[in-house]
């Protein structure tokens, strides 16, 4: 039994249990990356705009399905918790930072595709600016999540996701292959952790004892 009066650790442990223990987020990211593996193929078939819309709809559908799964899994296994105003504020600020960084990244991709950064080769070598920015932004976002909540596996996920973009340029294979590999590894990790979670946290009534 943990009896330390360490409020930061307690808060972190509560948030980690409520948010990351069921690893539905891992599976959602893994499956999204597996789907992104098909991006170059569907772009050739649908055209750039329709393809972007198609992925927007499908990725949102995946997010919706996983939030539904989380609602079904969580309450009977890990219980229900409501966080205070301070935690809600921190989550809101983190969401804003994530949205701002993601929007900046997308903007750079759009500007780059329109030839707005023609003279970056002197300091970026063979890499285009959008690749470098994407790697930095994704490492900051996923690494920040891993550091803040002490979820060690997210460091690996951050490296895998960020590495997809330079590998796409470096490897002489189909463009989607790095996403397939990263998505496969993350989905596999998520599935193993989910199996452990289902075993460790059986559905409980209040009077029942866990394992």
């Amino acid at each position, binding site marked *: 039994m943990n009896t330390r009066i360490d409020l930061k650790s307690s808060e972190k442990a509560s948030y980690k249990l409520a948010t990351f223990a069921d690893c539905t987020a891992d599976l959602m990211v893994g499956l999204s990356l597996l789907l992104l593996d098909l991006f170059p193929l569907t772009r050739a078939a649908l055209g750039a705009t329709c393809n972007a819309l198609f992925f927007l709809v499908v990725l949102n559908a995946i997010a919706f399905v996983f939030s539904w799964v989380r609602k079904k899994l969580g309450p009977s296994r890990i*219980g229900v918790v409501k*966080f205070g105003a301070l935690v809600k504020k921190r989550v809101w600020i983190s969401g804003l930072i994530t949205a701002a960084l993601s929007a900046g990244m997308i903007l750079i991709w759009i500007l780059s595709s329109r030839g707005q950064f023609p003279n970056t080769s002197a300091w970026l070598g063979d890499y285009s600016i959008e690749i470098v920015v994407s790697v930095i932004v994704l490492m900051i976002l996923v690494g920040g999540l891993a550091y803040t909540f002490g979820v060690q596996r997210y460091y690996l996920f951050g490296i895998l996701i960020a590495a997809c973009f330079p590998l796409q340029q470096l490897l002489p294979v189909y463009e989607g292959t790095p996403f397939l590999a990263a998505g496969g590894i993350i989905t596999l990790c998520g599935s193993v952790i989910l199996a452990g979670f289902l075993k460790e946290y059986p559905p409980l009534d209040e009077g029942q004892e866990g394992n």
Partner: protein
Amino acid sequence: MNDEITNNPLADPDQIIHAPARLNIMTQLYVVESADYIFLKNLTGLTGGNLSAHAAKLGEAGYLEIEKSIVNKKTHTVAKLTKAGRKAFEAYRGKMMEVLEKK
């Protein structure tokens, strides 16, 4: 000598909070707004019976607000620290830190 005992913060700790299991419950609830018994059991490692007994004691002292409801024909209990509970926990924590951080 008597003055030394009176000034010692350990001389009179809040006995309701001082028990390890109840301190654990108070600590977990202090950092959230409310939590149900299943979540508290997972976080504290207490058994259902232990949790109920200690939570009841904290409730009697006015530190805990316990709300019971029926969800899907099962009892669902949510616990929340009262203002008095938060104040008592802060006072207890302050006392303990004063003792432990004294050189």
